[in-house]
């Protein structure tokens, strides 16, 4: 890693290795297949939240409709593999490409809007998508959903077994993480953050702001479609209610609670929210005997508290002690000094 990158962005290898280590270690600790399912779902949802984090945290554009792109991926995979007998991998790629273009076409007009209006427009997109998959029931199986989606197999290795699928999902998630880190740790990352702060200033510096916004919007949609296809092959069944606004809101909350400011926040947020859901439900059922959707009371409360007191998200809370630990600032100034002496300015 070049000196320059260390100066500009700080270290990324350590957190990455920590995450990889964690992922490798978990299967040996966790035995119950229920927790395993949650881990796999966290992997799938992290791919969506990583894309969303780029869009919201960096480019500053809100989207309440990413469940639609998640759905397009799931349904393209589902329909192509069931009624057209395409290979799942081909269907997955087709899904991502179609979602990318659909999001690109939608993005151009929509990203001219700002704030509440953008949120409402993306909400509208999600509802229109939901009604379309309900309506086209010859193709998508409509409300009864689409059954019999084959599970994936990699070079003959059947991925029905949880362990293989777990590693497959998390390798994909790590690749997406790497991709996002590369984008963030480059000039493009700076462009996105400057769009977030002041679009006018960015434009005067020669940046075609629309192109960047739409590109990131389409990219995050492609990520969501990838996750959708994997979700379809894992659950082997897709039905419209899973891709409704409630799922878009869940993704948004995961990003914001995790901390939209950093790509790592997306993964942290997804994990915390997924476990939070299960814990509250587990505690609710066993100890208080209350059942059903009651956990949304605690869930709603926690979201309000986090957004009020920790607007920058959990990642911010965790990264602060780490920064103090390594006295990051000192390292930067020192290495910067010898940079200058080296250049002889």
């Amino acid at each position: 890693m070049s000196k320059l990158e260390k100066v500009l962005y700080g270290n990324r290898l350590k957190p990455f290795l920590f995450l990889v280590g964690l992922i490798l270690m978990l299967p040996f600790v966790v035995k119950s297949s229920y927790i395993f399912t949650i881990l796999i779902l966290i992997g799938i949802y992290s791919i969506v939240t990583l894309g969303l984090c780029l869009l919201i945290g960096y480019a500053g554009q809100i989207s309440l409709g990413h469940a639609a792109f998640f759905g397009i991926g799931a349904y393209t995979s589902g329909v192509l593999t069931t009624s057209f007998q395409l290979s799942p991998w081909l269907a997955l790629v087709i899904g991502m490409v179609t979602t990318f273009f659909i999001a690109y076409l939608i993005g151009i007009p929509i990203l001219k809007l700002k704030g509440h209006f953008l949120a409402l427009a993306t909400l509208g997109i999600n509802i229109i998508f939901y009604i379309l998959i309900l309506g086209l029931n010859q193709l998508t199986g409509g409300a009864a959903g689409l059954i019999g989606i084959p599970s994936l197999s990699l070079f003959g290795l059947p991925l029905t077994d949880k362990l293989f699928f777990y590693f497959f999902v998390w390798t994909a998630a790590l690749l997406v993480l790497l991709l996002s880190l590369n984008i963030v740790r480059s000039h493009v990352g700076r462009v996105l953050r400057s769009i977030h702060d002041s679009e006018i200033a960015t434009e005067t510096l020669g940046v075609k702001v629309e192109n960047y916004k739409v590109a990131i919007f389409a990219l995050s949609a492609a990520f969501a479609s990838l996750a959708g296809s994997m979700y379809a092959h894992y659950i082997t069944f897709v039905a419209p209610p899973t891709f409704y606004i409630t799922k878009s809101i869940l993704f948004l909350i995961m990003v914001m609670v995790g901390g939209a400011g950093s790509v790592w926040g997306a993964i942290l947020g997804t994990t915390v929210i997924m476990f939070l859901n299960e814990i509250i439900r587990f505690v609710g059922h066993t100890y208080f005997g209350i059942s059903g959707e009651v956990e949304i009371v605690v869930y709603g409360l926690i979201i309000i508290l986090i957004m009020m007191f920790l607007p920058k998200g959990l990642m911010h809370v965790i990264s602060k002690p780490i920064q103090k630990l390594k006295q990051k600032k000192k390292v930067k100034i020192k290495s910067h000094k010898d940079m200058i002496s080296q250049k002889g300015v």
Partner: protein
Amino acid sequence: MKKLCKSICSFSLMLILVIALSACNMETSGGNDKKDGDGGKEVIKIGAIFAETGPASTLGKTQANYVKLIQKQLDEAGTINGKKIEIIMQDYETDDTKAVIAADKLISEGVVAVVGATQASTSMAILPKISGEGIPLMTVAPVNPEAKDIYQMAPSNLTNASLIIKFLKENNISKVAWINARDGFGVEGLPSFEKVAKENDIKIVAHEEFDATATDMTVQLTNIRKKNPEAVIVWSRTPGAGIVARNFKALGFDIPMIQSSASANKGFLDQVKDNNENIYVIGSKLSVVDQLPNGEQKDRLKKFREDYRTMFNSDPDNFTAHAADGFHLLIEAIKAGNTTSEDIHNYLKTEVNKYSGLTGSFELQSDYVGPYEDGFSVLGIENNEWKYYE
């Protein structure tokens, strides 16, 4: 002040993460044999997946209640040839993904059989996971008749269709309109009905759909009025079913309206209170126990209703009865000494044939899906109560 809140918040969130990890290993140690602590083999676990909340709770709530009732009865009855039976209930909140996660959870708990999924689409969602593990699945919703290796407790839509056709023939109606909700339950009805209607030359003159959460269906009913049918068939859960009935009456239709079995519950009766002439519902004989001719069926249904009433002081409906049939069959299999999934599978496939359930008699060996028509009939409504016709 802000600093304080920040530290409290971050502290509480760290706590949650710690709980999460502890929950992990608590889960992994086969967590909840809290009751009698001894090894797994002594307790036979039966899984149950119902929608206790969310839109489908109008059907799933009584099923979830029934789990509590039958668990109490099993505990009182003590062990069955040395084994205790424990029913683990999962509420999937009308969300198919949560149902699949719940199925995984039950599999990891080591259940020998599962009674489940209030909705047809959810049953299809959990089917591959459960039958993949060789665990028998007793479905309680009208799933498509061709689905393999499941035991259907609910009458298939073919049975419902033939009941409606019988009713239409008696009132010599030949032109009908079909209106259904656009959700998992609503869309299942028409395909089977179309098949049976074609054989009995009943013409479907209009087909309309409405969003499951819609609050006004006058437009759909006005479209139907244009085709002037002789009867209207509604396939939807409440509250949608009730709103259609109310709009139907408000628009001054005087032709009969026939509702699916999903409307055979108290909620629907309240919705169409004092405005329900000429409205018929496919209901199980459970709802009209007192008007039944005396006999073995009447006593069994009466006992079932009394037990439910004493515990929940409200009435069970036919969806509760489907779940009850599922549990009773499984308990009968366990009583006959089968304690593993394979034993139960071949017990149900070979030994038992005739079984008179709460919602009609079953013939498990025959390829007739679900109970025969003898458990159901088209019920009318008179002074806000169900009316049974011979």
